[in-house]
Every structure is written in C-alpha cells, then in structure tokens.
C-alpha cells in the first residue's frame, strides 16, 4: 500500500511546474575538448557568486551541443570547430542568434616514442604522405616517409573519426576535412593513444597538447615545419603566439544572444571568461590562454552583440584577432 501511495506521489510530483528554481542558472554544454575549460570557469564563477548564480556544464560533444543550443535549450555551447552550415540553418530555423567567441587555444601535438631516435622533425608534407587516404596499405614503413629513415614498420595512432580533433588534423595535414587513411589505431580516449605510442618504438600519433604535457616522460613531441619554415615544437608558448602552425586551433564558445541580453547572469559569465586573471584557469587545465589582443577583441564582439560566424568552413592557421574583426555572416 505504501508503494502505491509513493507511486501516486511521484506522478503528482511530475506535474509540478518546471523552472521554479529561484537561483539563476547558466547552462553550458558542448564539446568534450572544451569541457575542462568550462568546468574550471564554472567552478570559479560559481564560487565567486555563491548562492546567486549557478553554472551547469554538460558533455554532449560539439555536434550534440549545437543541436541543443540551436533548439534554445542551452545558453552557451562549447565547440572544437566552427559551426557548420547545416547547424547554422538549424539555429536560423529556430530563431536562435549566436555570438561566436574564442575561449582558448589548443595545439595538436604529433608524438613518437622516446626510443625513436630518427625523427628530429617532420614537415607537413611528410605528415600528409603518412596520413592521406592514398597512403592506406602503401606507406607502411618509416623509410618510405623520408630518405634515411630506418627500415621499420610505421604504426599510426590518432583521434577517433567522430571527434573535432580528427576533423581539424585532417583539414590541416591532409588538406581535406574528415579524410584520411583508415588503417590506423583510432580511439576517442586520448589516454589510450598515449599508452599506445609510449609502448611502441615505431609509433606515431597525434592528440591534444595537454595529453603530451602530462606525459612528457613517456613521449617525445615532433617539431613541425610548415610551408618550408623552421620546425616548431609544440609548447604553450609557441601555440599561444601562433607560431606552432598549422596545428594550433582556437576553441570556441557560442553564446545565445537572447540569453546574453535577457539574462544578466549569462552576460556576467561570458565576460568572466575574458578576465585576464582567468587565463590561468585555462592554463591549469592544459590549454593555452588567449592573448590580450584576442581578449579585448572578444569582449568587443560580445559588447557589440555581433551575431554570426566568421568562418565559411574549417580553416587552418587562423589569426584569431583577424577572425574576430571579420564581417560575420548569419
């Protein structure tokens, strides 16, 4: 009998009106790559506004995050790539206007095992030779990559094909988004890739800089040479000043314009992201904080409520300040 009563009570409870929450809430969702930044910001912002403003962060992924965002379910969504045309269409259909803001820079590091003593640097062309779709089943030995490399099998590790990381890497290296050879070890869990490369003398892999920095004792980063330039090693500094290219990418927030305008706490949170002292939070979770010029430009875009995206598609080696100053399209 007790059970029946409880069941009835739960049913009754489910009809209680929603959104009766008294405390203001900022709803953030989106990319798992951006998640650590969102989490750190949410934690500090929550502490600074205890009892007044709450921030919740979901982990739907870039694509899943946009789906929710464009239905108006979230205030801000994180993305590891610019919004796609079909996602933009969805937002338009639902009348969701957004402001595109960079939150941090991430570098993709190309890594080999510390026992690998033959690679001192690689050019983008050499990487392309390894990763392009035509290489499948053909480029299987290190000595095919460059004259003088030893006769050793080439074992490749990379991000799973559903991730923004994979999309960016293929755009930057192969030249075409979402196109690469298929015969490499792919995992959505970067820690699996770390272990894979660390335990295989003949391996080469790529993943976010944070995973390399946390595992420097097990891995060696390969300096990358682009367009005939000097090879550059991935570090927070070289990523921060845009020297490590084409594998440095900005991470984005897309803020719902209506939320920013109507909810004071959302605007407050958005501004909080670009305070200089909060750059340390970005650094702490393994990404590269935005420089002063980027922060100023982003704050201006936010203040002017500039709606739309600066991108026509994925681009590599972008200057973030320049993208912020571009004419946006929506």
């Amino acid at each position, binding site marked *: 009998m007790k059970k*029946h009563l409880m069941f009835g009570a739960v049913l009754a409870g489910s009809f209680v009106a929603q959104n009766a929450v008294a405390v203001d809430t900022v709803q953030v969702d989106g990319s798992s790559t951006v998640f650590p930044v969102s989490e750190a910001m949410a934690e500090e912002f929550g502490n600074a506004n205890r009892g007044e403003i709450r921030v*919740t962060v979901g982990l739907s992924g870039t694509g899943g995050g946009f789906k929710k965002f464009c239905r108006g379910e979230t205030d801000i969504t994180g993305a590891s790539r610019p919004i796609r045309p079909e996602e933009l269409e969805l937002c338009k259909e639902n009348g969701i206007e957004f402001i595109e803001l960079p939150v941090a820079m991430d570098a993709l590091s190309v890594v080999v095992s510390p026992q690998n003593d033959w690679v001192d640097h690689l050019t983008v062309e050499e990487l392309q030779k390894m990763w392009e779709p035509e290489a499948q089943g053909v480029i299987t030995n290190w000595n095919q990559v460059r004259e003088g490399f030893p006769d050793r099998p080439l074992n490749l590790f990379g991000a799973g094909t559903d991730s923004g990381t994979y999309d960016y890497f293929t755009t930057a290296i192969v030249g075409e988004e979402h196109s690469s050879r298929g015969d490499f070890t792919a995992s959505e869990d970067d820690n699996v890739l770390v272990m894979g490369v660390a335990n295989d003398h003949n391996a080469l892999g790529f993943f976010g800089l944070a995973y390399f920095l946390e595992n420097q004792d097990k891995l060696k980063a390969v300096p990358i040479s682009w367009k005939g330039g000097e090879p550059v090693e991935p570090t927070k500094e070289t990523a921060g000043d845009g020297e490590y290219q084409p594998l440095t990418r900005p991470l984005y927030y897309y803020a719902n314009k209506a939320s920013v305008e109507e909810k004071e706490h959302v605007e407050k949170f958005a501004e909080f992201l670009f305070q200089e002292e909060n750059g340390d939070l970005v650094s702490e979770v393994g990404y590269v904080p935005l420089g002063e010029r980027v922060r100023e430009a982003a704050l201006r875009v936010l203040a002017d409520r500039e709606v739309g995206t600066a991108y026509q598609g994925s681009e590599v080696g972008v200057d973030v300040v320049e993208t912020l100053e571009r004419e946006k399209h929506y």
Partner: protein
Amino acid sequence: MKTLSENIKSGIDYASLSRKNRSRDIIFASLGIIVLFIAITTLVALFLDLAVRGAPRLTDPDFYTSFPSRRPLDAGILSAWVGTIMVMLVTAVIAVPLGIAAGLYLEEYAGKNWLTDVIEVNVSNLAGVPSIVYGLLALGLFVQTFGMGETVLVAGLVLSLLILPIIIVSTREAIRSIPNELREAAYGLGANQWQTMAMYIIPAAKPGIITGAIVGLSRAIGETAPIITIGALSFIAFLPQSPVSGDFPFISFEWLNSGFTVMPIQMFGWVSRPQADFQITAAAAGVVLIVMTLMMNALAIYIRYRARK
C-alpha cells in the same frame, strides 16, 4: 535386452566403467573450480586494483562531501552520489510496482491468446535491447516531444523502461515456480483469484520477485549510455532541492525537475582527462560505485532472508 547377470557373464567390467565415470566427475569438478577461480580472481583483482589506485581519494572524507573540480585532488562525488540515489529512487518507485503488476497479470490473469503471446515475446526481446536505444527513445519522447528537460525524473523514467522487462520476466519466473497445488488448495478453501494471489502466491513468490527487482536496479545503477544520451550534466556544483523542507507544504517534488549527474558519468568524464591524478579520482569513484551496487545486492539478500523466515 540383456539382464544384469547376463551382462556380467558376458564380461562387461562394471568396476572399470564406474571408475571411468568417477574420473569424469573429478575432471569436470576440477574444471569447474578452475573456471570459478579465474572468474573470481579477475573480479577481485580488478576491485583491489581500483581500490589501491583510488586509496588516496577514498580515505579523504572531503571526497564524499565536495563537488567536482578542475583540480583532481579537490574533486569530489557529492553531486554524483546524491544524483545516483535520487535517480535510483525514482526508477525503483516506477519500475518495481509496474513490473510486478505486469508480471502478475501476464502470468495469472491474461488469457492464452495470440495477443498475450505477442506481448510475451516482445517483453523477452525488450530485455535484450541495448540501453542506448532506450536513451534515444527517451531523448525523442520525454526530452524533445514532451519537453520535460534533462531531469532526474526523465532519467528515472528511462532507467525504469530499461529494467521493466527484467522485473516482469523474473516476476513471472518466480510465480511459475510456485506449485499448482498451492493454488488449487486455496481455491478448494473457497478463495477467489485475487485472494489466492494476495494471500498465497505473492507471499510465496516474494523472494524471487524481490531478487528480480534488485537485479534490475543493480543493472540500472551502472548504466551510462542512456543517461548521457538524455543529456545529464557532467559538472554540477549544487544539489537538487531537498524533498523535505521546513515550510509548508513540507514535501517538495522540485528535485524531480532538477538537473543532475550520476556516478558512472562522473567517472567517465574523469577517465578521459590528461592529468594522471584524475585517474586516481576516477578509480576512487569506481570503488564507490561498486560498493553501492554490492550494498544493493546485500539488501536483496537480507530482504530475501527475512521473507523466507
């Protein structure tokens, strides 16, 4: 057909036959012990490995009372374990009565016709549907069509759907195992069908029914996929509103509409982080989740023991 004595005369060696059979017994028994040993050691090794790795966090009382954090050594599971308990509560309150009632109806009341057959086959099949499918169903129906949001209630509903078939099937099994004589004796005493059920069948089948319910709930507690699909949060630094308050009307169901996170999601988030210390936190969360599951099973054993007495 020869008789035994004829067989003995014709020279069949029964002594060696029986020795052979006995040695087969020994082989099978030792094989069984080896397999059991492998299974148990793997489990114990996994658990111990998690416990040892997670020990630094497990022994820290703050781990249980603080919210998640970007600093692995400050990160706690407060919102996760509270979320898990609330979701499980909703799941139990919805799935257990519905599942038992459905099982009773199908076994005792439903007429034997094609419709019942179709339902039976479907219920059994539903028990094998991957959990992500339930997640997608809930996303489409509860979250998007009904607009219920990503709440504790929706998570409880999807997990209820997930374990309903398990509870229904085990309820039926439990009832089927009650000897028909019991039923006939009750009818013989003049009891009607409801009286027979309520006073004889259900009490006799209770241990089996409860075990089924707890097995279902134990499955639900570790489910990640459907809860991620409906959009559970990963970082949440507050608890849903308390169900009991000092003001009128004292009981609030606001918590049902609250955002939430659960233990497996929190663990999943930590495992994929670059900092090695997060692996410790994840291991500790894993131990807590296993202990929660074991506690539920222990509860089942206790209830069954009491029901048998």
